[in-house]
């Protein structure tokens, strides 16, 4: 079973140079317990069977290390490979697929056109689908209704693309599944908090099934955020947003 190694100090029996070498070879991941972007990377590492050290960041008091490794965005996730940092989850996912090409399953398909389509749908998820979903969750009244309608419209496009497949990538999950994957637990949380259903069986049956397939897959079900804690956090976020607009 895949286990993260929380940072510990190495054994004193290794020489300083051996320790440095071993240390540099270890894959490290800077993360935050509730970040969906971090989970995407962790699932990808698990698909490839890569051991890594996980460093939990306090986002309200970011470590010097994080700021040094990701000076541009100052965000998690950051993957450290041979002492060098890679930031931005989609960039990291493609990196993982290329650096460990012959380990485990491929995350991106082989064919250039299929790769282009995977990248297109990742962008769609980020640029076109996420904003109205976030807006729906963080507003109320007319603004929320408009965001809801926009979100459903984009979800219907996704539904058409999925078209009854087990995963976006086919029989096994791939880049698009990993990238959209967090929605499979985040949307139900949002639905519970707002009391409104976004993904209805009559309208989005493939997506509903996909969410189930994703959550129940061996890679994902062994590694999900703590749901109760996440629910509380999401609730607090919604309340903060609503307060600010009053």
């Amino acid at each position, binding site marked *: 079973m895949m286990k993260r190694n929380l940072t510990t100090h190495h054994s004193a029996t290794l020489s300083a140079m051996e320790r440095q070498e071993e240390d540099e070879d270890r894959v490290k991941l800077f993360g935050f317990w509730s970040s969906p972007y971090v989970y995407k990377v962790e699932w990808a590492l698990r698909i490839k069977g890569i051991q890594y050290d996980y460093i939990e960041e306090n986002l309200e008091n970011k470590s010097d290390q994080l700021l040094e490794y990701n000076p*541009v965005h100052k965000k998690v996730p950051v993957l450290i*490979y*041979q002492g*060098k940092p*890679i*930031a*931005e989850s*989609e*960039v*990291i996912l*493609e*990196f993982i697929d*290329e*650096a460990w090409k012959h380990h485990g399953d491929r995350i991106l398909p082989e064919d*250039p*056109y299929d*790769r*282009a*389509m995977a*990248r*297109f749908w990742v*962008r*769609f998820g980020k640029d*076109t689908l996420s904003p109205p979903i976030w807006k729906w969750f963080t507003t109320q009244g007319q603004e929320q209704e408009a965001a809801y309608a926009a979100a459903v419209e984009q979800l219907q*496009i996704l539904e058409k693309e999925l078209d009854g497949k087990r995963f976006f990538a086919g029989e096994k999950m791939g880049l698009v599944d990993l990238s959209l994957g967090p929605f499979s637990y985040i949307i139900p949380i949002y639905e519970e908090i707002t009391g409104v259903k976004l993904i209805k069986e009559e309208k989005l049956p493939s997506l509903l099934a996909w969410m189930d397939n994703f959550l129940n897959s061996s890679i994902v079900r062994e590694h999900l955020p703590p749901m109760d804690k996440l629910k509380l956090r999401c609730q607090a976020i919604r309340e903060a947003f609503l307060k600010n607009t009053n």
Partner: protein
Amino acid sequence: MGETVKVIGAFDSPFSHRAEVALRLKGVPYELLLEDLGNKSDLLLKHNPIHKKVPVLLHGDRTIPESLVIVEYVDEAFQGPPLLPADPFDRATARFWARFLDDKCSTPFWLSLWTEGEVQQGFMKEIKGNLKLLEGQLKGKRFFGGDTIGLVDIAASGFAHWLPLFEEVAGVTLATPEEFPDLCRWGKDYTSHDTVKQCLPDRATLLARFTAKKDMFVSTVKSMAPKS
């Protein structure tokens, strides 16, 4: 292979240029279909129904939208000089900066041109800060890609050819050679490159077009900018 390659593009568009320059650098012949973005063709709406934007690459029966997706596709689908480095870490670095350009530079750049007062100052500070970060990636190299043009150069091409034009139309100064010596030098090297030159829209025509559209740009931005 020998399948037909077409680009649905637009004369003014730096995104359209990205698709063309990638094909030319790879040595792939293509047909350019120019759109009038004020009156989009059925062809465009058929091939990019979701976003209805240019560029769109048509390769045989395949359709690929999104300029940076197209550039990576061209790199992977065709033989020719590589547009991305070979090493996975270097590839990740290139992709990081290409995304930085689209996610962090496009919007503040556009807003810094057409807003006013304190709001404009804010956007100017933001874009200049980001351009400085970008410039730092040149590190004495001729191009972001090293000796040859690569993904990041292509992604940044808007700042090579279109930035000075928009500065002129808007009456705004964002990147002087004094403040951005490497970036300005890169801009000149990029726009004077033999292959790039072939698919850069004529400066004078662009200037005239953008000047004519200035009022429209300002009013569109007014509806975008945060309400005070």
